[in-house]
């Protein structure tokens, strides 16, 4: 039997989708939904990603709705990709986006001096959360090495 075929899914389908959804919604939470031995990492990721995103908000950065029409002069493909990456940060990103639409006081504001820097913090938090989700799902789909070794 090849090593790859001996890797059995450890997460059931509903648990897989739950981990995917909650891992996205609450940044860094994906590891907390895996086995107990991963909880410390999960906690570190949870704190680090929230802190990073909210530092970005503190610097007047945030998630702004980009221009999607390619014929518009303000259209920028890079901005659209950055927007999708920022949305990877889950609930803080959704709140930031909502704050812009609602005109809340702490909404992202482009003319501010530190807007670009703050938004970059949000971007990093989003990308790292996507990385954490993919890694945790990968861990959840395979049996740990020590179990494989016993088999």
């Amino acid at each position, binding site marked *: 039997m090849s090593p790859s075929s001996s890797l059995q899914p450890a997460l059931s389908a509903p648990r897989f989708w739950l981990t995917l959804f909650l891992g996205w919604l609450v940044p860094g939470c994906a590891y907390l939904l895996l086995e107990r*031995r*991963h909880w410390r*990492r999960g906690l*570190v*990721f949870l704190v*680090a*990603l929230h802190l*990073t995103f909210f*530092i970005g908000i503190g*610097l007047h950065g945030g998630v702004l709705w980009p221009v999607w029409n390619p014929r518009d002069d303000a259209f920028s493909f890079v901005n659209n990709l950055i927007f999708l990456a920022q949305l990877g940060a889950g609930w803080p990103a959704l709140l930031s986006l909502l704050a812009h639409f609602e005109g809340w006081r702490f909404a992202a504001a482009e003319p501010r*001096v*530190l807007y670009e*820097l703050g938004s*970059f*913090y949000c971007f*990093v938090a989003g990308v*790292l959360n996507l*990385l*954490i989700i993919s*890694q945790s799902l990968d861990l959840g789909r395979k049996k740990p090495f020590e179990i494989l070794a016993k088999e």
Partner: protein
Amino acid sequence: MSQNLFGFLHVLSLIYLTGVVALVIGLQETEPGKPPARNVLGCWAKLLGGLIGVGVVVYVLSLFAG
């Protein structure tokens, strides 16, 4: 905002953001139960070194830009 503070915030951000990226990558590379400090610090050093290298190259090129 003074230019000094503006630049200082960017340098601090460079250190902080590379630290967070190194923390996530370093922890993911570490087997559960083993101390992650070596992986995290190694990753942080590589990232910071690479970015400072890029910064130096950009600075040198800017000297020739007139």
